[in-house]
Structure formats: structure tokens, C-alpha cells
């Protein structure tokens, strides 16, 4: 089985200004993250806002440089690839199809841009490929003549997917691709992404805060907390038998449409995690229900998880 994405000890820091005269603070957005994704599979990444999941996506897309560590994509070191080579291999679909499409360009031009930027395709070839991919994502040919403002949210996200796939990449990074959409449209887009993966043998990194969506699509799931992956496992095992207390809290907070069950107390308390101020010991301990003294002082190391994968918890 070949590996599509291999990430080793990836780390990214940011310096943020705390105030006009205060010294800048250091934020570790991604902290020593390692994983690999087999070709043709889907790795789901879940976590709250500020956990570093979007920074991770930008690092793997090559939009940000890592502070240390690196990624190998389809057998090539990401740092060795130039923009054009990267674009042929790996493409993004972002959350907000209202912000990610140029409002002044026609759909045909938006989808053609990755081909044009390569500089090696004839005009006929570009037109042919754009028409083919628009049809593949379920957009009528006349949509190509429209402007983004004339399209619904679901249609725009189809355009974003067409643009990502027009260069026939091997890997697609989906960063919350359905969060801005209605549930009925979300289902259409998830079904489309599933079909495309099967038919085109794509590999996805699928980032979402919606665990149900991740469960539907992902073969493996990684849970991020304050920059680290705290648990990773095959999807069914993770959902059936979560080992990390944070994974359990995330699963508990999903409101399934089952009347009469009320809203659960997920027991995370009121303190929100601050990436500029990471607690000593286990970084989750201030919000953890079952934390013991050891959790306050000693950072846990990754252990092989019961049922496969890994978990970072003293008590798992």
C-alpha cells in the first residue's frame, strides 16, 4: 500500500503582538505532528477552533513553511516542490465558497485558472478539461458563463471542487467544506466528494468540527487539541471506543436527532484553551474531568491505543 501523505514531526510557531508595547507572544499552532495517509483513503481531522487544524492544512498545501519537520507528498519532499508541481499534486477546497471564488470572474475562468497558471495547456485543451470537470461535479454547461453571485452556496462549493480537481491532483485537502452549507446541500456535497474519491482514486485530508460528517467520510480520524494530535485511530474504533477524555467529550457534544435525551453535560468546564498559553503537563488537564496529579506536571507520550492507532493520555 503506497503512502500519499507522510508528515514527520511537523511544527509551526507564530509570533503575535500582544499589545502596542508588550513583547510579542509565541504561539505554537502545530506541535510535533506526525501521521501518514495511505493512497486512496481519507484522514479526518477534528478539534475545536484554535486547535491548529487549519494551520496543518496550510502547511501540507505548502502555503505556510514549517518551523521544523516536514511532509512527503506522493513520495516527494514537499519543500523540494515548486508551486506548479505542488498544484499538480495537491489542491484545496475551503470552507466558505462565498469568499474563495473571485466575484468578478466567470465560473469557466475560475475553474480554468489552475490550468492557465501551469502555462502548458492549449486553449482548446483548457476548454475541454473545464467542460469535463464541470459536468463531473454536477454543474450544467451554461453555469460556466455565470458569475459566482448568481450561484447558490451548494453550486459554489461544486465550483470550488471543480477548480481543485481540474489539474487531476492525487490529494485534496478539504478544510470544513460543508460548514457553510445547509444540511440538505451538505448531504449533496458529501455524496459528491465520496463518489469522486472512489472514481478518481483520490486521497483526502478532511478537516471538520462536525464529527458526524467526519465519520461519514473518513477511514481514519485524528483528534487535535492545542496543536497536537491527542488520539488517532481507524474511524469505527475511535467512535465506538474513544480512549482520550477529550475525544469522549467531543463525541458527547454531538447532538443526534433523538428527542427526549436533552443536552448532555460534556464536562469541559468554562475555561477555553489558549494556544498562546499552553498548560504544563498534559495540555488538556485544566478541562479534564478525570485528571490526576501526574497530569498537571508530566506531559503524556504517545502510546499504542487499544484497538489500533495512538493516544496521548496517562489514563487511557
Amino acid at each position, binding site marked *: 500500500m503506497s503512502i500519499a501523505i507522510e508528515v514527520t514531526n511537523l511544527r509551526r510557531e507564530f509570533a503575535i503582538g500582544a499589545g502596542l508595547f508588550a513583547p510579542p507572544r509565541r504561539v505554537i499552532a502545530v506541535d510535533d505532528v506526525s501521521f501518514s495517509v495511505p493512497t486512496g483513503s481519507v484522514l479526518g481531522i477534528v478539534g475545536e477552533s484554535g486547535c491548529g487544524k487549519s494551520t496543518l492544512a496550510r502547511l501540507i498545501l505548502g502555503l505556510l513553511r514549517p518551523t521544523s519537520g516536514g511532509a512527503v507528498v506522493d513520495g516527494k519532499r514537499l519543500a523540494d516542490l515548486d508551486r506548479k508541481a505542488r498544484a499538480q499534486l495537491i489542491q484545496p477546497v475551503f470552507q466558505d465558497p462565498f469568499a474563495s471564488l473571485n466575484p468578478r470572474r466567470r465560473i469557466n475562468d475560475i475553474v480554468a485558472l489552475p490550468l492557465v497558471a501551469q502555462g502548458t495547456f492549449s486553449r482548446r485543451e483548457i476548454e475541454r478539461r473545464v467542460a469535463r470537470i464541470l459536468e463531473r461535479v454536477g454543474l450544467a454547461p451554461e453555469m460556466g458563463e455565470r458569475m459566482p453571485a448568481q450561484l447558490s452556496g451548494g453550486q459554489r462549493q461544486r465550483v470550488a471542487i471543480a477548480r481543485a480537481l481540474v489539474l487531476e491532483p492525487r490529494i485534496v485537502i478539504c478544510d470544513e467544506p460543508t460548514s457553510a452549507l445547509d444540511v440538505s446541500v451538505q*448531504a449533496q456535497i458529501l455524496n459528491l466528494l465520496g463518489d469522486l474519491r472512489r472514481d478518481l482514486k483520490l486521497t483526502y485530508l478532511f478537516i471538520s468540527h462536525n464529527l*458526524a460528517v467526519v465519520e*461519514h467520510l473518513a477511514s481514519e480520524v485524528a483528534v487535535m487539541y492545542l496543536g497536537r494530535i491527542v488520539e488517532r485511530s481507524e474511524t469505527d474504533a475511535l467512535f465506538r471506543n474513544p480512549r482520550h477524555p477529550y475525544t469522549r467529550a467531543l463525541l458527547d457534544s454531538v*447532538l443526534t436527532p433523538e428527542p*427526549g435525551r436533552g*443536552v448532555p*453535560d*460534556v464536562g*469541559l468546564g468554562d475555561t477555553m484553551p489558549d494556544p498562546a498559553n499552553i498548560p504544563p503537563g498534559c495540555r488538556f488537564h485544566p478541562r479534564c474531568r478525570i485528571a490526576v496529579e501526574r497530569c498537571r506536571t508530566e506531559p503524556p507520550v504517545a502510546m499504542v491505543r487499544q484497538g489500533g492507532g495512538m493516544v496521548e493520555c496517562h489514563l487511557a
Partner: protein
Amino acid sequence: MSALLEIDDLAVSFSGRTAAVRGISLQVEKGETHCLVGESGCGKSVTALAVMGLLARGAHRSATRMSFAGQDLLSLSDRGMAHLRGNRMSMIFQEPMTSLNPAFTVGSQMAEVMTRHRRVSRAAALERAVELMGRVGITAPGMRLGQFPHQLSGGLRQRVMIAMALMCDPQLLVADEPTTALDVTVQAQILRLLASLKREFGLAILLITHDLGIVARVADRVSVMYAGEVVERAPTAELFRSPQHPYTRGLLSCVPVPGKIQRDRPLGSIPGVVPTIAPGFAGCAFRSRCAYADASCEYEIPRRSAGAAHDYLCRLAPREVAALQPA
């Protein structure tokens, strides 16, 4: 006994071209959570704004009845309405960053709500603000008074909004997608908070959401909206047990349920989008997306009863719905 909020045949249109709300009726009882659910563009938020008297200029509102706690809202002046808002009825919005004033501290915004409606000193109002912030789970409330909205996290801002809405002990809280911009973990905390306020203060909540998971967990009764109409309404358990309208059934089939997911099997979905309805439209607005539509759907649709307090708008009678494939 009459309901706290009673609305009959409410219609809202914009510049005579778009009919956003088309003759809906709604009752919210004291101490009840009533959910309005539907896709974007179906008229949920416009309904809420119409209730609060906050529609933009150019919107035309009409109704045969709109009453709140026995008071007729239709004949009330703008000043009378302003006296109710933030006082007996208050509203919280989806994005707390855009609904709090960035130029004023949390304390001064909260105090203003109370000094505007009650004869109280600013000091007394601030005291009340601290008490309520503690009540909604804000740590170190005294310190928060001097902070500006941008210094708070999204979850804290939404708690401030809720505390502010409660300053004058309202009977009705209108909440428009109050947790959509928040993380799932924070969402659970905010919804638990709303449920406890309802229990303790007998607060009635009109909750607008597109999330059927939220509806199932917090609502007492549900009105499903589509293209400006309430197409189905029922007590919550009943709606989830036996949904009748094809739109309700479609919405329910779209929701991926954790633990019950069969991967490699497509989710249910509803093709197309909510249409924009022009005035004078006749028949069922869902017919262009409905698998069961026929020629009769272009004419007036009967409102059918499917049990006590459960009715829906469709050509199909309950026994015909029962004969369909499960949604």
C-alpha cells in the same frame, strides 16, 4: 388560557416582489421552547424580526393577529414596541461580534439595557449585570464589565448577549441560530444554559435553527418552515417519530447520525434549493424538489391533521404517507 405569543396569518414581503413569509401562524406558550426549523432562505429569520418589530424599511408586514402577553402588537406604536424590546421580549443573534457594540465596554452596554427600561441607577444596573453574568457561567464577571467585546472568546460573547437579553426579566427570548458560529463543545454549554433558564425563570424561547439535532434535544414543539410557510408542526417527539411532509422527511434523511452511519452508502439529500417566491404564487412551493409531486400540487394544498397538535400542508393524506418508502 391564551398563549404568550400568538401570531395568525403573518405575511412579510419585500418591495412587493419577494414574499418571504406567506401567512404563517405560530403560538408560543409560557415556559415553552418552540423551534422554527428550515433551510436558509425559508423565512425563519424574517419571521423573528417581524415579531420583534425589527424589519428593515421597505419590508411590508401584515397579519390578522399578533399578540404578546395579551397586548396587541399590530396597533402598537414604534415607541411602544421599543419599550417592549429588550424588556418583556428580547432577542439574541447568531454572530455576537456583530451584535455587540465594539466601542463600548460590556458593562456599559449591559447597564444601558436596564437603565433605559427601568428606573434604576447605573450602579444598580451594573450590579444586576454582574449577577446575571455569574448566572450564565461567565467567570470573573466583575472583571468582564470593563472589557470590550473583542477581548472575549466567541462563547463568552454569546453568554454576554444572553445575560444582556435577560437584564429586564423577559418573558420571551427570540434566539436566531444562537450557537451556529460556535464550537460543538461550547454549543452544548449554551444550550444547557438556555434549558436551565427556561426551567428556572419560566422563560419562553422561540429558537430558530437549521440543526435538527438541536431541535430534537431542546424543543417542546416544532414548526418546519419552507419557502415562507409552516409546512408541518408537531410536538417534538411526534415530529421525529412520524414526520408527514416530504420536506420534513427529506430533511431528516440528510442528517448524518454518529454511530448509525453506513459508509459507502450515500446520505439522503434534497435536490435543488429553496426557490424565491413571488407574490401570487399558488400551490405547493416544494413541488419542484418533491419526489411525490403531481399535477394537483399546482393548486391550493389542504392542511391535514396527523394527530393532536400535529398538522401539515400536503396533497398526501397520512395513510398515503404511511404507504411511502421510509424516509
